[in-house]
């Protein structure tokens, strides 16, 4: 596709359930990022992939959060035992650059997660 695609756009789940959020980056983009945006706040960094490997996962809040990118393209953010505080918009972004890190990030429209 032309841009970063995220699915689902909306997800409502119950406390304690497991959730997967998917990100399909722009074709050829080697770098992929996950951010979380709570209501009234700016996006908060979660994790960054360069290719298949997680180069920086320092933003993951706890071990209930995990992300994979097995083939260096599509990524899945996985949240176990969801809590009400996990409710937010989860944003994915990708960029073309390699190690320089100065390339433009292209963001998807986000997946809105609501935990009841």
């Amino acid at each position, binding site marked *: 596709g032309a841009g*970063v695609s995220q699915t689902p756009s909306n997800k409502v789940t119950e406390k304690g359930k497991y959730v997967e959020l998917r990100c399909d980056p722009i074709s050829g983009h080697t770098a992929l990022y996950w951010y979380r945006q709570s209501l009234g*706040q*700016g*996006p908060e960094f979660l994790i960054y992939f360069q290719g298949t490997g997680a180069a*920086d996962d320092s933003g993951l809040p706890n071990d209930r959060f995990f992300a994979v990118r097995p083939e260096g393209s599509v990524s899945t953010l996985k949240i176990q035992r969801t809590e009400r505080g996990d409710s937010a918009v989860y*944003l994915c972004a990708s960029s073309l650059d390699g190690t320089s*890190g*100065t390339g*433009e990030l292209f963001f998807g*429209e986000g997946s809105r997660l609501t935990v009841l």
Partner: protein
Amino acid sequence: AQSVTQLDSQVPVFEEAPVELRCNYSSSVSVYLFWYVQYPNQGLQLLLKYLSGSTLVKGINGFEAEFNKSQTSFHLRKPSVHISDTAEYFCAVRKTGRRALTFGSGTRLQVQP
């Protein structure tokens, strides 16, 4: 750790008036600076960035920003706004050598006719 402060949560302005959205950051090391815009029901989009060189940076849609190292500021300006500029604007910094962006809490620009 670095942090970003956007001093105004909302800025109402009339069409064709000038506007300045303020951004201050704190960091003990060199940073790259960015402004992103989020239009309703759309993803974040890069407006402009400062990496090095000239401190006055021009971006898309007639926006510009000036990096002031002594005041640790990166304010966004536009001399004449349009209704279509109504959106949420986010300032962000990135420490050199790292990829993670630290965002401010955003400023909602509301352009009125």
